[in-house]
C-alpha cells in the first residue's frame, strides 16, 4: 500500500519534466545513432545523409528552403482558415435547416472519402495552380471541422434549451448564446485536426502540381531534389515540414487551452 502511495505522490512538476525530457532524450539518441550508422557504415550522402549534413544543408540552402516554407505555410494557413470558416459555416447552416443538411451532407462525406491525391490532378486542370493547391488543402481540412461542429451543435444540454425557450429566446440568440458556446470544445477539437490536415492537403497538391511542372512550395522542393538526387535537401525540406506541422499543432492546442481553461473539463488539471 505504501508503494502505491509513493507512486501517486510523485510531484506534478517532476511528471511534467519527464514528459518533456524523455521525448528529447529519445530524439537525441536517435540522431546520434543515425549519425553513427552513417559514419561507421560509410554510407554515401546520396543514399543516406547524416543528421549533421541535413542540418548544414538546411542552413546553406535556407534561401531556397525558407522561401518555399513560406509558400507552403501561406497555403496551409489559407486552407485552414477557409476550412474553419467553411466547416463551421456549413455546420451552422445544416443545424438551422434540415432540408439543406439532407441535401448537402452526403456530398460533404463524398468529398471527404475521395482521396485528395486523386482529385488534385483534376483540380489542376480546371483551376489556376495556386487556387487548386488551396482547394486541396480546404477539401482535406474542412470535413473534421464540419463533423465536429455538427456534433457540438447537437450536444446542447436539453434543460438549457428549455430554459432558452422559456425566456422566449430568438433563433439567433439560441445560436449565438447557447449552441455555438456549447459547441466550442468540439469546434476546437475539429480545428486541431484540420490544422495538420491542411498542411497535408497543401503538400499533396504541391506534389501533384510539381509533377505537372510548376510550383515552389516545400513539397515541390522535395520532388525536385529527388529528381536531382539531392538527398540531403530532401531531408532538410522534410524536417521543415515536420517542424511546421508540430508548430501548427502546438499553436492550436494553445489557443484551445486559452479559450477553454476556465470552464471545460478537458482543460482543467485535477487535484488528486
Amino acid at each position, binding site marked *: 500500500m505504501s508503494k502505491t502511495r509513493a507512486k501517486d505522490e510523485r510531484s506534478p512538476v517532476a511528471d511534467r519534466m519527464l514528459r518533456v525530457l524523455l521525448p528529447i532524450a529519445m530524439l537525441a539518441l536517435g540522431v546520434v545513432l543515425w549519425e553513427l550508422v552513417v559514419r561507421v557504415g560509410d554510407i554515401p550522402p546520396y543514399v543516406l545523409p547524416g543528421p549533421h549534413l541535413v542540418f548544414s544543408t538546411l542552413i546553406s540552402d535556407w534561401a531556397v528552403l525558407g522561401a518555399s516554407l513560406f509558400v507552403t505555410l501561406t497555403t496551409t494557413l489559407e486552407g485552414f482558415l477557409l476550412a474553419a470558416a467553411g466547416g463551421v459555416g456549413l455546420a451552422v447552416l445544416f443545424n438551422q435547416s434540415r432540408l439543406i443538411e439532407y441535401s448537402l451532407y452526403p456530398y460533404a462525406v463524398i468529398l471527404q472519402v475521395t482521396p485528395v491525391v486523386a482529385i488534385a490532378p483534376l483540380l489542376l486542370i480546371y483551376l489556376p495552380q495556386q487556387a487548386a493547391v488551396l482547394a486541396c488543402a480546404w477539401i482535406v481540412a474542412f470535413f473534421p471541422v464540419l463533423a465536429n461542429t455538427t456534433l457540438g451543435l447537437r450536444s446542447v*444540454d436539453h*434543460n*438549457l434549451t*428549455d*430554459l*432558452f*425557450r*422559456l*425566456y*422566449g*429566446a430568438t433563433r439567433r*440568440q439560441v445560436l449565438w*448564446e*447557447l449552441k455555438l*458556446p*456549447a459547441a*466550442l470544445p468540439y469546434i476546437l477539437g475539429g480545428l486541431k485536426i484540420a490544422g495538420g490536415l491542411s498542411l497535408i492537403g497543401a503538400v499533396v497538391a504541391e506534389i501533384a502540381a510539381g509533377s505537372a511542372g510548376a510550383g515552389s512550395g516545400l513539397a515541390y522542393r522535395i520532388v525536385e531534389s529527388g529528381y536531382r538526387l539531392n538527398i540531403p535537401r530532401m531531408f532538410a525540406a522534410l524536417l521543415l515540414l515536420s517542424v511546421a506541422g508540430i508548430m501548427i499543432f502546438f499553436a492550436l492546442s494553445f489557443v484551445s487551452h486559452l479559450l477553454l481553461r*476556465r*470552464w*471545460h*473539463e478537458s482543460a*482543467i488539471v485535477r487535484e488528486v
Partner: protein
Amino acid sequence: MPVYPSKSSAPVVALNSVGKTFANGVVALARLDLDVRPGEFVSLLGPSGCGKSTALRIIAGLSEPTSGTVEWLEAEAASAGPRRLGFVFQEPTLMPWATVAANVRLPLKLAGLEPSAQARVDAALARVGLSGFAQSYPRELSGGMKMRTSIARALVTEPKLLLMDEPFAALDEITRFRLNNDLLALWRSLGKTVVFVTHSVFESVYLSQRIVVMTRRPGRVFAELAIDAPYPRDERFRTSADYVGYCRHVSEALASASDATDQR
C-alpha cells in the same frame, strides 16, 4: 385527513382535466385538475415517473397538453409573452462557459433588458447569498451554490410564479435543509407563488401550505392535504410532533395513491 378549504381568490393558473400522452404511447397524465392560488406554496408529491414534472412543464409552456386546458388569470395572460415565471430544474442547468453573474443575467439578456441588468443581477445574487461569487465559473462552485445560482437566475426577472422541479433532490441533507430554509425565507419576503415538485414526503411537509398527492402514471390528483403549521418554520418545526404527524398523514396518502393505481 384535512382537505384544503377552497379559497375565494381566483387561481393564478388552473389545469383543467389535463392529459398528456407522449409520442411513444406513454400516458403521463390523465384528467389532472390543479388550481394554483396566488401567493401559496404548493407541492406536487408523487412517486418517480408519476408525471409531476410533466405537469410542471405544461404549466411552464414547455410542453403542450394533449387534452384539457390550462387557464391563466386574466392579468397573467396579458404578460404571457415570455410568461412571468421562473423555472428551476432538477439540475442547476447553468452555462458552464459563463460566469455566475452572466448565468443569472441570461433571462434579462434574452428579454433585451441588458442595460438595467447589473443592479438586478447583484440583487438576485445577494438574495441567495452569492454576492462574492459573481465572477466564478459554475465548475468552481459546490452543488448547493450551483443550485443557489439557478434560483437567483429564476428570481432575476421577478416572476410572480416560481416553478421548481425537484431542485434539491441531488443535494446532501445538510445543504438541502439549508436551502429549504432559504427558500422559505425568500418565499415569505418576496410574496411569490411557488409550485414545488418533489418525491420527498418530509421536504413537502416542511415547505408547503398545501400538498397535492399524485397517483402513479398516468398521473392524476389523488388527494390534497393542507399543512396548517404556521410560518416561519424552522428546525423546531422539523423536530415537532406536529411535523411527524403531518408526515405520517402524507405518507399514508402517498401509499394509498400508489395502491389506487395498482388496482386499476
